[in-house]
């Protein structure tokens, strides 16, 4: 004789829904944390690309489409960090607890 009584369909559905909500909340927290981490990584990456000797690699007499490589590189990195920051701050980084 089976002792286990299967939960009713309604109970199962509500359990699923709350599980989904929990997973969604966990994902949101995770994403918020990931965004804050990126907000720290981004300036470090920018400093690495623009201030470290890496920049010397691109300071060569090479031109792409008539524009010197070094100019393309610096303005390219610059544009990249601006766009990345804009994308990061599109959502409020303070939202999911910033302590």
């Amino acid at each position: 004789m089976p002792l286990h009584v299967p939960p009713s369909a309604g109970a199962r559905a509500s359990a699923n829904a709350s599980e989904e909500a929990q997973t969604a909340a966990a994902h949101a927290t995770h994403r918020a944390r990931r965004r804050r981490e990126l907000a720290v990584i981004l300036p470090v990456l920018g400093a690495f690309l623009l201030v470290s000797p890496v920049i010397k690699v691109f300071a060569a007499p090479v031109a792409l489409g008539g524009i010197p490589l070094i100019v393309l590189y610096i303005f390219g990195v610059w544009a990249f960090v601006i766009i990345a920051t804009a994308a990061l701050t599109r959502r409020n980084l303070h939202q999911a607890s910033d302590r």
Partner: protein
Amino acid sequence: MSGNLLIAASVLYVALLFLVAFLADKRAAAGHARWLRSPLIYTLSISVYCTGWTFYGAVGSAARSGLEFLAIYTGPTLVFVGWWLLLRRLVRVGREQRITSIADLISSRYGKSPVIAVMVTLIAVTAATPYIALQLQSLTLSFEVLARGEGGAPQPEVTAFWIAAGLALFTILFGTRNVDANERHHGVVTAIAVEAVVKLAALVAVGIFAVWWLADGPADVFARTPPGLIDAAENFDARWAAITFLSAAAVICLPRMFQVIVVENADERHLQTAAWAFPLYLFLISLFVLPIAVMGLSVLPDGANPDLFVLSLPLSQGQDALALLAFLGGFSSATSMVIVAAIALSTMVSNHVVMPLWIATAQPQNTSAGDVRAVLIASRRSSIVGILVLGYLYFRLTGGSDALAAIGLIAFAGVAQILPALLAGLFWPGATRLGALAGVSAGFAVWAYTLFLPSFGGGLLLSAATLADGPWGIAALRPQALFGLSGYDPLLHTLFWSMSANAGLLVLGSMMSRQNPLERVQAAIFSDPAGLPGGAGGAVIRRSATSVDLYTLAERILGRPAARSLFAEMTRAQKLGDRLPEPDDAMIARLERALAGAIGAASAHAMVNQVASGETVSMDALISIADETAQIVEYSHRLEAKSRELGETAEELRRANQRLQQLGDQKDAFLSQVSHELRTPMTSIRSFSEILREDRGLDPDQARRFIAIIHEESQRLTRLLDEILDLSFLESGKFDLPLEEVELETAIDQALAASEALIARAGMQVLRQRPREGLVVRAQRDRLAQVLINLLSNAVKYAAEGERIEIVTGVETGQAWVEIRDHGPGIPAQHRLQIFEKFERVPGRADVRGAGLGLPISREIMRRLGGNLELVEGSEGGAVFRIALALVQPSGAGLQTAAPQPGTV
């Protein structure tokens, strides 16, 4: 282009700015400041970073050293992209603590120290001097270039003078109209935002003109680049990193940048927009710098000043309208910088230099209301004039000949000296005031000695000879080759020595000194701004302030309406109805923050404390409080110990009392039992003797029988009294029974001899099991025999007639034992515990009569002999009593040595 036209255009432009600023102020006052306080305006106001240096100097720098100019913008870009790390914290602390300037921030963090505020103000003013001179120089040069050929251009000194005067006037009119409670300037910020748009538009217009009008697009521009100008790898050596660092430091530490980023910030979230929008602004404004420089080099004749390419390029092509736009762009860049810098610096000077002096000298009690505001405004106005005069003097002294970028970097290196104290203040709670003061002063001194003073080229303090050979000819102290470190770029040289001294002394000083309590509180707030919303500020103890005094103070500084609404709000917060608020700690802290918005934290703290005539918690006060506390704690420990002792004593007394009560109860019970026991024989004696006395005709036999009964009863009485006496004698315990060595068998023999008649009368047999060797115990023979007799007579009484009694002797764990076993009915389980109580008798044969004292007496005797008497479980039914005694000689050896005991049998 005529000088008059330029002046007219400038005046018109300034008038437009006036209008913008005026309208913005008006709207803000009317409460319609929402769009004035948008992230866009905030970002545009931050672009006050881009000054005449950017507008003119960047092109000059690009023409001279290629891409080096970009480092001035990559530094701030990295700081803003990393806003989450530093700026967010800075803005939050600034808003929570109502910070009015960078000097205020540093002084607040290090215990609201006035000394450090003065030091930072000094650095800021000194470093701003070349920077303001730079703006004057760029404006003067632009006038000169545009008015050239018309013959109407006045002397550069005259032009610079009038520019300086005009800027001072504008700044005074808009920067010091009121002493705002939160030190925000809506009108000025809006005007600055308009100027930001103008300068960007102008530079981009000139850029587009250069790239697509003068040249055939970007490829053509770069084809005209002199070889090695932009792709030289040595452009990105240490100097590149140093300038990036300096510009990053400057965007935080420059007083005007601090003013627009932190002080004028209306909403922390605006920073999120500025984080990408400000770098974007920098990106756009630098985009065309290189093409303009390249086209200037290629089109203009040799010897043209590269710093003025932005103007001379359109002029050379006859584009006067574009040149005018470019002029206005440059004018915007320079004026916005001077205005904001003058406002920020005048706030610092008046709050941190003038106010403390005024507080120290004037007696606030004797001055009429409004004096403080008048002093504040007057000091700010004169500071603005003073700062512009200094800039003008620098311009005159250096001759206005240097490249713009070189002058700007001197200023950057100066304000960068504030950075270590700022970062340590935000991220290192252990940094102390002494460390910060030592670091900042040392860095400032090294900067002034190795970079600032040499920039006069021997014109100020340091002579040309000192520059070349060091003071008094000491080569190791040459300003530009300190300790023989020569061959470096002067900027790198200064940066290395000043930052080493600065950071080194900051750490050393912090390690060697201690924070005072206020400093510790502030350090905690600054390290975790979100953790302590509002901040505790300086606690005032032993306060005697009245609300009226505090209100008077607030009215003087904030003005009547602001003070009234502030106090009304505080009253509401305390829920007091319509009275003045109670001057509690929270209220005073709040008032102090409100005043700090107008006159800086250190001054507000000093003023509130003076009025509150309380004392800030000093280290000494804290120590003495701590001492008192320690004493109290120790005293309470002692009290606790004492009360614990008392508790134990009381508990002992309680137990003793209980015991006494028990004993009393026992005594009562004993007495009642004794009287009961005595009563029965006495009654029968009395009744028989009455019969004998009154009945004369009694049968002689019967009379004899009665007399026998009387005799028997009196004997019982005697026995009973003997036993009671014996028991009380034993129980009193006042003396010891003298112990001797007794042979156990002898004592048994004695007991058997005494009980022989009794046993024989009952027709019983005694089975005796002797040990193989004699046992000697410590006892008293007569008493031991008494116990044995008692046990034997008990056995006779309770066992059935004709049964046998066994006496068994043995040894167990150093004790000799004797068991008296009978084969009677035994002791019922429910009586086993009671048989050793006095007067308890086990129901037995009807003819058995005893006082019920035998067993208690026997047990008492055994205990006094150091042994025991107990009832043990018998194997065959019947009662088994066992006595145990300490054995002297466990083996037969004792028999030979011990003297033979005389037997009684």
